[in-house]
């Protein structure tokens, strides 16, 4: 055991763009990210920040008009250059994905049974009968009652929460080393969100799986990940141990994002802080820091190209800010747990 452990997922200087009539949209623009075996990483950013495109690039689910550069090593195999056959052999046993809306990600005219078993039959080389037995076990594991009968059901016969549990069972079917969950609770009722997140937590720890939890909701990621990466307009702006990022955000964007999260202990009359402005045009992003046009602390130095390269910090807490928040100044450490409860708790 002297060899250094190879990271499960190693994304290096990844660029993903989509050709449009008015020029390429740079969805992911030079992002690096590693996930170690068994590690839970949160990927946070608002809609359009590129977090879902990053996940789709790893899974090879980009539209035809998309292009990529950089490397995405999945257990040492570069999925961007691998043959289709090799790439498909990784999808399922190495990496699996839980989609945002199980109501749309389950085929409406295919029984649950086939949707769970087809991957196992293909990747694990087992018989249909054996795959069905395993499917029953998987559905039990994710808390679907009466699993044997569910196999014969169609998705529309099940509730949203059940569908998402089944989506998770499908993802777990080939025992992946890494699970990518793209906004797994956004489409669900608030009362069900917590159950699904707890389920993801449980299967991750019992199976020792790596997890990339993608969310626009910082609070959701806070208690459930080892590290968190914050994306803005296709760039990584801050990355580090979850506690460090939440207690002491260094990038002005992360700070603003945290401050705009509703919290229970804030005085009732105080208005919630919002980030003024909107994401920059992804076809013509600003030269330097992309958050500069919306940032109160920005000055000329922020507009120098390359101003938003990541700077190393203690314990691997990196940020891309020219004028970082002083350590310990911008956090929500005082009552973090209360402030960052998952949305379902604060609202229910």
């Amino acid at each position, binding site marked *: 055991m002297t060899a250094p452990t190879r990271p499960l997922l190693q994304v290096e200087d990844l660029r993903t763009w989509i050709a449009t009539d008015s020029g390429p949209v740079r969805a992911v623009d030079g992002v690096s990210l590693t996930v170690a075996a068994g590690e839970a990483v949160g990927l946070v950013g608002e809609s359009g920040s590129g977090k879902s495109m990053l996940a*789709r690039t790893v*899974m*090879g*689910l980009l539209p*035809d008009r998309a292009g990529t550069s950089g490397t995405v090593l999945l257990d040492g195999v570069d999925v961007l250059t691998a043959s*289709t056959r090799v790439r*498909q*052999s*990784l*999808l*399922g*046993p190495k990496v*699996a*994905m839980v*989609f945002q*809306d199980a109501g*749309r*990600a*389950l*085929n*409406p*005219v*295919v029984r649950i049974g*086939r*949707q769970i078993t*087809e*991957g196992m039959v*293909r*990747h694990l080389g087992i018989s249909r009968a054996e795959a069905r037995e395993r499917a029953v076990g998987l559905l039990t594991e994710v808390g679907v009652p009466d699993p044997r009968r569910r196999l014969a059901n*169609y998705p*529309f*016969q099940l509730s949203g929460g059940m569908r998402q549990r089944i*989506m998770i069972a*499908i993802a777990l*079917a*080939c025992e992946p080393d890494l699970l990518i969950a793209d906004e797994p609770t956004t489409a669900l009722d608030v009362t069900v969100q917590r159950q699904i997140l707890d389920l993801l937590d449980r299967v991750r720890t019992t199976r020792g799986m790596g997890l990339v939890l993608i969310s626009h909701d910082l609070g959701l990621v806070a208690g459930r990940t080892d590290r968190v990466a914050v994306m803005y307009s296709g760039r990584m702006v801050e990355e580090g141990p979850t506690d460090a990022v939440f207690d002491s955000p260094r990038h002005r964007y992360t700070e603003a994002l945290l401050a705009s999260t509703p919290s229970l202990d804030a005085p009732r009359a105080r208005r919630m802080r919002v980030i003024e402005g909107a994401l920059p045009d992804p076809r013509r992003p600003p030269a330097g820091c992309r958050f500069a046009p919306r940032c109160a602390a920005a000055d000329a130095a922020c507009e120098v190209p390359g101003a938003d390269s990541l700077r190393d910090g203690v314990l691997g807490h990196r940020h891309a800010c020219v004028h970082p928040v002083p350590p310990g100044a911008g956090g929500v450490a005082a009552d973090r747990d209360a402030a960052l409860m998952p949305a379902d708790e604060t609202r229910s």
Partner: protein
Amino acid sequence: MLLFAANRVVRALLVILFATFLVVALLSIAPGSLAVTLLGDAATPDAIADLEARLGLDEPLWEQYSSWLGDAVTGDLGTSLRTRQDVLDAVVERLPVTLELALLALVIALLVAVPMALLAANRPGSLVDRVSTFLASVGLALPAFVVAPVLVYFLSLKAGLFPVAGWERIGDGLGDNLHHALLPAIGVAIPEIAAFQRLLRTDLDSTLHEDFISAARARGMPSGYVLWRHALRPSSFSLVTLAGISFGRLLGGTVIVEAVFSLPGLGSLIAGSISARDVIMVQGAVAFIVVAYVVLNTLVDIGYGFLDPRVRREAVR
């Protein structure tokens, strides 16, 4: 599902009543006296009145219809004015030819169009897609009266692969029968292939953008499997509708091809009866086709329930 089917059957009966009423009314609505037309200018008034009474033309429309309907449900569609043949017998005698032609054409069209559409949709914008879609456009633009003679010229006269014309009953040997039926069926199928390919190609394209297709790909399933086992079925609802409509249409609409190949089918029966002013025969044959058409479309509607499990439940709710 049962409730759903019952609902469709009731609707179909209403459509049949309305459509057959129109067919019967045609006799009275048609300008001029039918009896005069049939008997000629030299006919005596007595003869005209006699014929009108025999045809029931002197009665009010609803009585004409109710007596026609009463006869029709017992299988009596009247007697040909020209040949004195029983109309139903004549239709039933001609039906197998047209039925086989339509069915064969439909099967050929689906067998060709579905793989063409799948190949095209698999790689949108590729050479395969463009060639397949181009051929479909050409097929769509070619009417049967152009396609059929061209097929006869090249495949029958030049290559000698098929007989030029004529028909063999299935009872006299399936091989001989198919040998005669294949070329006309291809002629009928070509425009259908084109329509089917275009429709399925479009529906596949929108299905392939669905999340559940991404999800199947994310499970590492190869693209051929994803197309066949995940995309085809949810994309085929419109195709099934169109195929049902086409089949109904072909039952009465293979006239030109039947004429080119001199096939003893329903189309040539109707065409011949029209030119001979044999209204009773036309009426009976058209009524028969109407019923067949409605029944087919009802079966297609019920067939949705098997294709899409959601339809079954919606009908029960």
